[in-house]
């Protein structure tokens, strides 16, 4: 039973990870990629680690795995935020189908965003 649960968690996590990978490949622009993938992989890794905890059933392991999860959940959004912000300020282009941009009004009242690939 333990094995089944643990194995399933591993598989589920892997699938989420794969999904985020596919997402980062398929999404049309940087922002959608970030929106779509950061969390997916966070969740995926969380599940895999839960599976690991279940497999070992050792307090030391569990605490370390939980530490990773907590840490990931703490840092992943911050990382996404700093990159997203830098990208936006660095004029990484939005997908052409982007509906609305209320940020631009503050940052660039007049000009339109132009691409600036590094």
């Amino acid at each position, binding site marked *: 039973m333990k094995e089944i649960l643990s194995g399933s968690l591993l598989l589920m996590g892997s699938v989420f990870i794969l999904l985020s990978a596919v997402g980062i490949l398929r*999404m049309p622009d940087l*922002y959608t990629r970030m*929106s779509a993938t950061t969390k997916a992989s966070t969740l995926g890794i969380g599940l895999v680690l839960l599976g690991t905890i279940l497999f070992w059933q050792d307090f030391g392991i569990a*605490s370390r795995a939980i530490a990773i999860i907590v840490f990931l959940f703490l840092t*992943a959004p911050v990382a*996404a935020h700093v990159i997203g912000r830098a990208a936006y300020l660095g004029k990484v282009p939005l997908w052409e189908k982007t509906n*609305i941009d209320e*940020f*631009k009004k503050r940052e660039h009242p007049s000009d339109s965003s132009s691409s600036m690939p590094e």
Partner: protein
Amino acid sequence: MNLLLLNILLAVAWMMLTGEVSSGTFTAGLLVGYLLLWLTRPAWGETRYFSKLLPVIRFVLYFLKELLVANLKVAYDIVTPKDHMVPGIVAVPLDVKSDIEITLFANLVTLTPGTLSLDVSPDRRTLYVHALYVKDAGQFRRELKNGLEKRLIEVMR
């Protein structure tokens, strides 16, 4: 917060008493301490240390549910053609005030799939959020404020 400190001290004391220094005895100590503090709560005057427990648990559960649901939604999008996405950047006015509240809110927004906190305005009144489905900016704002922000404020204050 003083009670939290006391709680930790109690946990350490528990650890000493049991003579076993490990994370297990420490956690046990924490629980025992919490229980003891709760039992002796009149001694501590007016505190919300005990009334917070439930809302925190509720909030975490709510968030995990959101996380899973949104993840599935995005996952669905990833594996199907992308044309039905309507991304946009929305300015969300903030009711949260302190640094920690703003940070928590922004991070939770980001953690929720489909949305990404891009920046906080210098006056700290607006959060710019990129989202995958913004058919209507007003509705998006309302959903965010009534859902996540309201619950967060509930927990924090």
